[in-house]
């Protein structure tokens, strides 16, 4: 028989064994299909940085027309949900108990001071425990005051003269919907999960159960073995990606401004890099327990914290930024953010893809050598 025919025979047998193994242990299917879907729904609904209907106590010690007008504007805002408190101390108690996230205090001299053309203070107290949320609330609050002032000015009321005004434009995400950047990042997380964890477990399992010796005794070559371990989980991972993409676009309304071909092509590169990392772990560590631990600690958690999918990398201290360069997910988060929100911008996509391809090659070669070494 010709060598290529032999190769296909070996591969067919080995792939059949892998498929049977996947089918018989439902936990792999759960990890590859059910978990990504569950995660996508969880993140899509559960993770949002957009504060809406923030409960705020308002204390009105002034009842003049400007104060009531201001109050009406507050009530109409979709960001806040106002509750009137009788006095400051009651509002402060609500804040301490967590019933409200902020207090707005209109002091009793507001109308009088505005009438005299003097600046009047509006006091705001915000619960600062969640600093990011507090900052966003501050921003919304200032925005409300500014709009109110410019409206008064247009009506010919000289209460305010904003001198320098800001005209902000947020590109790629006009309404600043956090879901549009969180969901593409989440797809990275799902692919990391399938690629590293599932692949890491499959070889470690063979060692642990002693079936690796049996596999090595067959005419299967190391390359065949590696390919047979990579291929089924590659297909599972890409299927998970496709499924996530459909849910992201149809259910969560995330825009896909780049091309589908680019998305699938670059995802395949990232999938191979993740799988290479998983293979390396499992080839080096033959115990499932430790292999799983390491893939969670060194694969999954960095993909969450050091990839820029939720926390901005450029704002972290320099050593963290440097460490993030060895996390494959970092490059794919950049790719998916750009592909989904901005489009096929090759000057951004290409450098990231080249690094990912380099990582995939490096991990695969290392895994190959690790396996072959043990044979001698």
């Amino acid at each position, binding site marked *: 028989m010709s060598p290529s025919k032999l190769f296909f025979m070996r591969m067919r047998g080995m792939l059949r064994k892998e498929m049977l193994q996947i089918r018989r242990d439902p936990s792999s299917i759960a990890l590859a299909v059910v978990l990504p879907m569950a995660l996508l729904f969880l993140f899509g609904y559960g993770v949002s940085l957009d504060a809406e209907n923030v409960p705020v106590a308002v204390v009105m010690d002034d009842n003049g027309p400007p104060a009531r007008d201001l109050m009406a504007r507050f009530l109409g805002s979709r960001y806040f949900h106002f509750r009137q408190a009788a006095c400051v101390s009651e509002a402060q108690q609500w804040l301490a108990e967590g019933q409200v996230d902020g207090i707005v205090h209109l002091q009793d001299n507001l109308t009088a001071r505005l009438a005299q053309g003097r600046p009047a203070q509006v006091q705001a107290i915000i619960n600062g425990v969640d600093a990011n949320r*507090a900052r966003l609330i501050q921003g919304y609050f200032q925005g409300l005051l500014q709009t109110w002032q410019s409206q008064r000015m247009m009506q010919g009321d000289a209460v305010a003269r904003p001198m320098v005004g*800001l005209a902000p434009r947020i590109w790629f995400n006009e309404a600043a919907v956090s879901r549009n950047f969180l969901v593409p990042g989440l797809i990275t997380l799902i692919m990391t999960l399938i690629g590293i964890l599932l692949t890491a477990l499959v070889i470690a399992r063979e060692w642990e159960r002693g079936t690796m010796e049996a596999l090595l005794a067959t005419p299967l070559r190391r390359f065949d073995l590696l390919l047979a371990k990579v291929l089924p989980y590659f297909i599972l991972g890409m299927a998970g990606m496709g499924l996530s993409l459909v849910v992201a676009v149809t259910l969560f309304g995330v825009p896909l401004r780049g091309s589908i071909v680019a998305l699938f092509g670059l995802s395949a590169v990232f999938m191979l890099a993740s799988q290479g990392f998983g293979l390396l772990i499992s080839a080096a560590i033959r115990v499932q*327990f430790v292999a799983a631990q390491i893939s969670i600690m060194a694969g999954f958690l960095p993909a969450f914290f050091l990839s820029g999918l939720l926390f901005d990398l*450029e704002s972290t201290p320099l050593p963290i930024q440097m460490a993030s360069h060895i996390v494959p997910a970092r490059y794919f988060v950049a790719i998916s953010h750009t592909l989904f929100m901005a489009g096929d911008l090759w000057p951004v996509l290409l450098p990231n893809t080249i690094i990912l391809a380099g990582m995939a090659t490096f991990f695969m070669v290392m895994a190959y050598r690790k396996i072959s070494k043990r044979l001698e």
Partner: protein
Amino acid sequence: MNSLHRLAALIVKEFTLILKDPKSRFVIIGPPLIQFFVFGYAAVYDVKHVRYAVLDQDRSALSRELLASLSSAESFERVAQLTSTTQIDRIIDHQKARLVIHVGPHFSRNLMNGEPALVQVIVDGRNSNVALIALGYIGDIVGGFNQALAGRMASGRSAPGLVSVERAWFNANLESQWFIVSGLGGLISMVVVMIITSLSVARERESGTFDQLLVAPFTPAEILIGKSLPGVLFGMLDALLFAAGAVLWFGVPFRGTIAALVASLACFIITIVGVGLLVSSLSRTMQQALLGSFVYIMPSVVLSGFTTPVANMPGWLQAGTLLNPLRHIVVALRRIFLQGADLPTVWPQIWPLLLMACVTLTTAAWLFRHRTQ
């Protein structure tokens, strides 16, 4: 042999199982410590070093003054000076800068005439949170510039009518590191405890020694205690270590009482041990146990309010998070560290944990016997 004697033997066996293997010993201590430091520094929402470019078409003293007040702010880092509007697309698209400040040609003329002068700010929205926070900072800087300007030009012109005075309670400088690090100990100890306990029964099932354990003269309660203790001990050790680390290393204030901290952590860790044992007794292999604990850990972290506020979730999901032990401990830890809560104040977080511990532990003990057939 009396009960205590038997129990002691069982406990020694359980600890030996975990501690005899140097790799699993390392896994209990090494990675959690690394995570604590890496995530303490990496998981922050504060926006720093925002790279920005400037397009100044006015080139007046006033426009330079405004831009100077921006470049002296430590959150911003100027990377380029543009000369025409056509360059804006490219620099944002290619992520060379995250925002561009565009001062139009009539900026100073408008200001001198008492008309509002608009400054255009173009932000890269690929990370919408950074975009909003950075815009907020710029708003503050422009507000300061306006006030300084009003002070100088006071004659004949009215100063801004409304001045907002803002204060943040519990975290005056709005350090998001305090928010994350105060809850981090709960998160990491949960991962450690879940992995130790979820593997404990599954490992014995896989190697067949669990049946021996069941025919040995132990009551289900004794087996439960023996299986729980390593998890409780290592979990408490990690959680308290990280609480100390939060205060001593990251400088998070500790305003509450030690009693509240220890009590709420203990209740939380016992609950998680129950969950871990539940997962463990439901799985036949170690792989299933690990995947099972992962299936539990992921949603529980997402729905805890650890990284993103529970208040932003839809109402039905917010109600669902009440069943999540991590949510309660994260709230309790933040209240203890930052808001100075004592034991009675965190009781609303403790009693749900106690209730969940009772349910998970008794179900796990019942499953030990009834899953074997």
